[in-house]
């Protein structure tokens, strides 16, 4: 490693063309090399890129995987998602702390190992899980945690922690991960054999307008959560003015409990890239970006190789498959630990080398997106569907599912059930049937749609998975009879407090207030008026927030207030003494008691 900071900064900036919009890649490279982006480094970077130091600090301080202060050569990031905690992540955490002799948020005195918590890393079907630098370790036990630390002390090489490989392409020489795919049910659309190149060939044989018409005829809607009709989105983007357009594939997959995009990228990346290429042809774009969350960095080299092969085979690049004047290529943009970057305009900001702040709308990405160009943002699964639609025709696709929700949906199922993993189901399936498939019949509650979704109670298990009823990006977290739904809601609120970008008042402040009051209730110190308070505050955050994060972050509270009212009612009580339930007289006078050196008879009466 070179200690010559100015030379390294120069080299890294040059490798990215001295381009300010590539700042994410540049600071990621710095972080990797030096364990931080220090003050002197920021000064040098600013000069090299002709920007201001504070712009770099602004970006670095935004992402969890970047830092201005040095971290250990190895960073252990334990996932503290609610599903991991249910599987014993807290005990694993203690084991890490004991073996390392440090607390979370600290680095060993020799500067070798840092210990941190991180939000859902997309491994809820193999919990507890952690990242050790880019290496994923799954199904951790306290013993495994201790062994990991001992080994790292010995050789300091996270890749050597992987002693067995997962199924399918997880064993590929460029992946070498212990991650499992856990594909539990294959349906008729996604998990089907594919003929590489066929979809693109068929697309290029018709006009872009006809491709869009095919996607519309299939009535494909987005699989990323919002469910916007894909064909319509493409049409708007194509119609927008300007020379250059862009296709973004959203592989940020940050919603707690989802992991199906990870499996798609592992097992059928060609289908994802084909979908992007077809989108490019349809909207008239010649560039694309796959935004890959930092947590999935272990897939990067593998995906780069697939891209290289596609270039060789003329599936990317100029005159694709001999089609004159159609060129399209794409790059991978790595994220760096920020859930908000899954929101499409924040994702665009991040690709542009900025903080992951969402942008103001209007204008919408279809009008003005990446670098001001009309841009389509689509989820990984959506693009796989596109490929299938072109392969087999829209009619075949629309045979599956229901009128408003055609095709199949991938569900990521985790929690208290016997069979965790990815299930491809037709739209319109009942939640109770899904639970039967996964062996989760005992559930008292299912969180549908991740933290931002809704907590559904037993009485409503006959509802159906589709855009008109239980719309979801595919995260299903199952909670058995021994779970406390309010504690689960509290964990979700902690997630939103951590992940709010902080741009707007209601989300930045309101979520903290919501969490505090919920905690008061779960601690048994709530009063009936607190429920009214939560409802009103939650509605304020939902109505007044600027983007989808804040517009859904109160859902854990608002949906449990609606569906689990009795649980709240059992916890809140009026006190007979006229004091607020949260007021603890003994604690309030404790300091005064130590000063005067005697106990208050009144407070301890």
């Amino acid at each position, binding site marked *: 490693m070179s200690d010559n900071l100015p030379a390294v900064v120069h080299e890294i900036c040059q490798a990215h063309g001295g381009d300010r919009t590539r700042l994410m890649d540049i600071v990621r490279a710095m972080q990797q090399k030096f364990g931080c982006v220090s003050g002197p480094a920021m000064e040098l970077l600013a000069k090299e890129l002709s920007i201001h130091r504070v712009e770099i600090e602004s970006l670095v301080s935004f992402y969890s995987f970047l830092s201005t202060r040095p971290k250990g050569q190895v960073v252990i990031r334990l996932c503290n998602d609610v599903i991991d905690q249910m599987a014993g992540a807290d005990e694993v955490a203690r084991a890490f702390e004991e073996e390392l002799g440090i607390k979370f948020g600290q680095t060993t005195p020799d500067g070798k190992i840092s210990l941190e918590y991180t939000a859902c890393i997309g491994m809820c079907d193999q919990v507890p899980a952690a990242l050790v630098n880019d290496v994923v370790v799954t199904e951790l036990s306290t013993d495994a945690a201790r062994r990991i630390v001992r080994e790292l002390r010995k050789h300091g090489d996270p890749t050597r922690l992987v002693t067995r490989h997962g199924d399918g392409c997880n064993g590929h020489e460029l992946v070498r991960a212990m991650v499992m795919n856990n594909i539990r049910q294959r349906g008729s659309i996604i998990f089907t054999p594919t003929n590489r190149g066929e979809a693109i060939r068929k697309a290029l044989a018709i006009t872009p307008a006809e491709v869009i018409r095919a996607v519309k005829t299939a009535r494909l809607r987005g699989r990323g959560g919002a469910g916007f009709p894909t064909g319509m989105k493409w049409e708007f983007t194509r119609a927008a003015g300007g020379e250059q357009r862009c296709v973004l594939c959203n592989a940020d997959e940050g919603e707690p409990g989802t992991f199906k995009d990870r499996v798609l990228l592992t097992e059928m990346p060609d289908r994802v890239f084909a979908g992007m290429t077809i989108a490019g042809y349809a909207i008239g774009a010649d560039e694309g970006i796959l935004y890959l969350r930092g947590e999935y960095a272990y897939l990067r080299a593998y995906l780069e190789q697939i891209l290289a092969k596609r270039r060789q085979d003329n599936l990317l690049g100029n005159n694709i498959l001999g089609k004159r004047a159609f060129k399209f290529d794409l790059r991978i943009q790595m994220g760096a630990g920020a859930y908000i970057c899954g929101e499409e305009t924040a994702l665009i900001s991040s690709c542009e080398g900025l903080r992951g702040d969402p942008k103001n709308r209007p204008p919408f990405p279809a009008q003005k997106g990446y670098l001001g160009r009309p841009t389509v943002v689509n989820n990984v699964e959506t693009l796989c569907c596109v490929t299938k639609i072109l392969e087999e025709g829209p009619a075949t696709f629309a045979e599956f599912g229901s009128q408003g929700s055609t095709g199949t949906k991938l569900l990521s199922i985790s929690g208290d059930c016997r069979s965790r993993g990815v299930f491809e189901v037709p739209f319109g399936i009942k939640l109770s049937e899904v639970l039967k498939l996964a062996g989760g019949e005992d559930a008292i509650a299912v969180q549908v749609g991740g933290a931002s979704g809704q907590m559904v109670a037993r009485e409503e298990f006959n509802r159906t998975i589709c855009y008109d009823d239980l719309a979801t990006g595919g995260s299903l977290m199952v909670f058995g009879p021994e779970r406390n739904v309010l504690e689960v809601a509290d964990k979700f609120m902690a997630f939103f407090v951590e992940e709010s970008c902080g741009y707007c*008042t209601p989300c930045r402040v309101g979520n903290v207030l919501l969490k505090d009051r919920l905690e008061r209730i779960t601690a048994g110190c709530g009063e009936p008026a607190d429920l009214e308070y939560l409802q009103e505050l939650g509605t304020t955050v939902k109505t007044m*927030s600027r983007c989808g994060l804040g517009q859904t972050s109160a859902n854990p509270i608002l949906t449990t207030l609606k569906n689990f009212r009795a649980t709240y009612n059992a916890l809140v009580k009026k006190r007979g003494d006229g004091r607020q339930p949260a007021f603890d007289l003994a604690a309030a006078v404790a300091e005064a008691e130590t000063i005067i050196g005697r106990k208050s008879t009144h407070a301890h009466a």
Partner: protein
Amino acid sequence: MSSTIEFTINGKDITGRPGQTVLEAAQDAGVYIPRLCYMRGLAAFGACRVCTVLVNGRPQAACTQTVAPGMVVENNTEKMTAFRRNLIDMLFVEGNHFCMFCEKSGNCELQALAYRFGIAAPKYPYMFQPREVDMSHGDVFIDRNRCVLCGRCVRASRDVDGKHVFDFVGRGLHKRIAVNAEALLGDTELAVTDKAAEACPVGAIVKKRVGYAVPVGQRLYDHKPIGSEIESTAL
């Protein structure tokens, strides 16, 4: 395209120009939409959310939403006013605001909004977060206890002064105003004559040696609530 756009706010007919925002079209017609992070002459920001209105039933920030023909806008309804009051409350408990000895008292937009909405004390518990004060600059100081993260200084310095003295660091509740230096405002190019030095709506970025110069009774909002200067121009 016609050069005027007709729409309504709370049933009142308003005429705007193409590309104009709801907030500015309303203002030109003498209708005040409460706001905090907005400042005429700076790019719209949409951060405080105080100007949120219902546009055809859907919440939108009036400072970023452009006008469209036939748009139905709801501004001062009971419901929207309650939401706005909650946002003002949130800003009060997030920071540490001691109006009685703040240099900006009487000229502060946050305080003035609280008065306009009839807020005597916030209903949410105070967070009492430790925030940094920076007195290093000869002519201007930063008191982050009072910062509402409106970004007016950021935009003014970047877009008007051409300096980029300020920007945001951190995310969520840890979001803060930072300066273009290792740590201190005194090490930046900020000049007291900069637009950024007078863009702050509250008492977070304050010019030195002019505090309390205006006697109580003659301050900006001592007699009329904030927004009345706009409402008095209504036809």
